[in-house]
């Protein structure tokens, strides 16, 4: 077992454990903390996979921005930041469905056809190709961000007037 593999086993273990803890936590702020750790360990795995740019991006965007965004949202919508809530939906159906998904994907992963040697890509090539070879994706992503921006600004804005109650209420 190489150092890479040991590190990966550690990080993957951390990720899975923190994911489980995050999903089972009754305190939503705890979930955010667990999820931050999950994102960090994923970012570290990207470094192991010789994708340092993505590792940094993961740390910046996920562990940084998204986590803060989520915390911020909780602060806005909850009167108290710490408020316990019940994990209500753990029934036999949901457990069965997720276990079945896990089994299918695991079975699939264990029957991979090839396991070629890894290769590395320097960050300059990646950044170059992002604007030349994959320019279309970035442009499309721009449109996605634009529509999300328009929509998010609109939805988050306080609207004038009282809420409309639907009939039947």
């Amino acid at each position, binding site marked *: 077992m190489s150092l890479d593999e040991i590190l990966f086993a550690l990080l993957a273990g951390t990720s899975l454990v923190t994911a489980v803890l995050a999903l089972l936590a009754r305190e939503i702020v705890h979930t955010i903390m667990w999820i931050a750790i999950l994102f960090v360990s994923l970012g570290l795995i990207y470094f192991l996979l010789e994708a340092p740019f993505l590792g940094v991006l993961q740390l910046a965007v996920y562990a940084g921005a998204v986590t803060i965004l989520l915390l911020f949202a909780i602060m806005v919508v909850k009167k108290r930041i710490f408020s316990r809530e019940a994990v209500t939906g753990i029934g036999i159906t949901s457990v069965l469905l997720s276990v079945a998904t896990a089994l*299918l*994907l695991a079975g*699939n992963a264990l*029957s*991979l*056809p090839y396991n070629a040697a890894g290769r590395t890509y320097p960050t300059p090539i990646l950044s170059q190709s992002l604007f*030349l*070879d994959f*320019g*279309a*994706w970035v442009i*499309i*992503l721009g*449109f*996605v961000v*634009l*529509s*999300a921006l*328009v*929509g*998010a600004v*609109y*939805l988050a804005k306080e*609207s*004038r*007037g*009282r*809420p*409309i*109650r*639907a009939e039947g*209420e």
Partner: protein
Amino acid sequence: MSFDIPSIAQYTPEATVFIGVILVFMLDVAGIRSRAIIGGATSIFLLLAFLQVLADLGSWPLQGLSTLPAGLLGTQNGPVIFTNFGLIFQGIFLLSALLVALASVSEADGEEVPTFYALLSLAALGMLFVAISADLIFLLLSVEITGIATYVMVGYTRKDRRAVEAAMKFYIIGALSTAISFFGASLLYGAYGTTSLTAFRALPANSSLALVGFGMVAVGLGFKATLVPFHMWAVDVYDGAPASVSAFLAAGSKKMGLFGIFIVFVAAVRIFASAQGFALYLALGALAVITMTVGNVMALEQTTMKRMLAYSSIAQAGYMLLGIAIDTPAALAGATLQITADVLMKAGAFIVVGAAVGLGVGPLITDWRGVGHSRPGIGASFAIMLLSLAGMPLTLGFVGKFYLFFAAVEAGGYFTLLAIAGLLNSALSVFYYARILRYMYMPESTGSATAGAHPLSHSSLGVGNAPAAPAWGSVRDEIRGTGSARWATVVGIALLLLVLGIYPTPLIGAMNSAAQQFLTLGL
């Protein structure tokens, strides 16, 4: 892919739509909230883009105005490819957006107007990119443009609890499907080392990765196309969203999902047809039959118009999926025809339902009692749409269904069973469409007033009624109630359904050649 000026010319429709978006932003900044101005401007830009697509397709009389460079059709250029099939779908998508933009001009002015039209144009833009994509990631990202725009559109009446609830449900299922389909895409990338759809077609299915990948991408796109069992959001969302947005979802966004399934699975079908034979057809066919059956059966007992239309829309998706499940040029052309018909029918039906409040009609199906008599223009148009949905002859709905089922029979063998299932389903669907027609034209409750009279109502009773007053008065009321733009859109759609239903030859010709090219030439 590099963007030199000559190559930008091929994106004229997309650029036109995007200029419309920028114009809407500028009007917003200028403080203009009038639907007539903003909606009108958006409609004009969508119309220009639509005409440009028609010109690119070489339709009469615009054939000289194509901006596509010669030799571009059918050759892949990075993540995009221009095909006649894709261009036809660009036209279909722009048509659905255009109809919704026109019809919503009649709604009330308000602060949400610029956002609504900007998002409508952005959603149309996303769909335009879907229609030219030759790359799975490009495709899924484009789907996401439309997805994100429509999540917000569903909740754009943000004071309406039902609309926001619908937006929330739509968003959750949508984001989940996005995650699933990108996971699937990652597996496909792992299997092939590329995400190019044309490359998928060229390579053999060498691993279970590809199988799982195709399955997961199908889930993500099947969500947009409202295939069973990924359809459940649709009913709630169509119900809760403003009717014009429901019209756009049913007419545009759903077709985008179907188109995505077509172009992804035409690769899968080709790969597996050699390796796996018949079984993939079985899966797709079963999905189609289940979808149409669930949709039709569930529509039977609905009490509100919007939910009924939502289920009927789900059922229609099943018919259209037959196009790829049969996988012959005729079937694909039939599905395209059915999609075109459905854009008109579903957009029209939801627009009519949106106008119901202005007409003094409630949300229940029973509220439509006697509307055929009191609102002649809207009533007749709605009746034509329902007849077309039911697949009655002389409407475009019939042509599409007939063509599709005929293609199934022609494909023979197992596919004949699909045609029979489709026929049975159409027969079943007639029940609930006829129910609405009956309410609209034969309000039985009024029968009790004369039920005691002698069956021979005429001379023996001496109640010779004068012929009803000329109908123009009620038509004028009707236009005032619905708004002239919406009224004109609805009547226009109905006329289009009839005209194309009686003389569909040009439409069919274009779709035949496009489908043939799509299946033989490449994507």
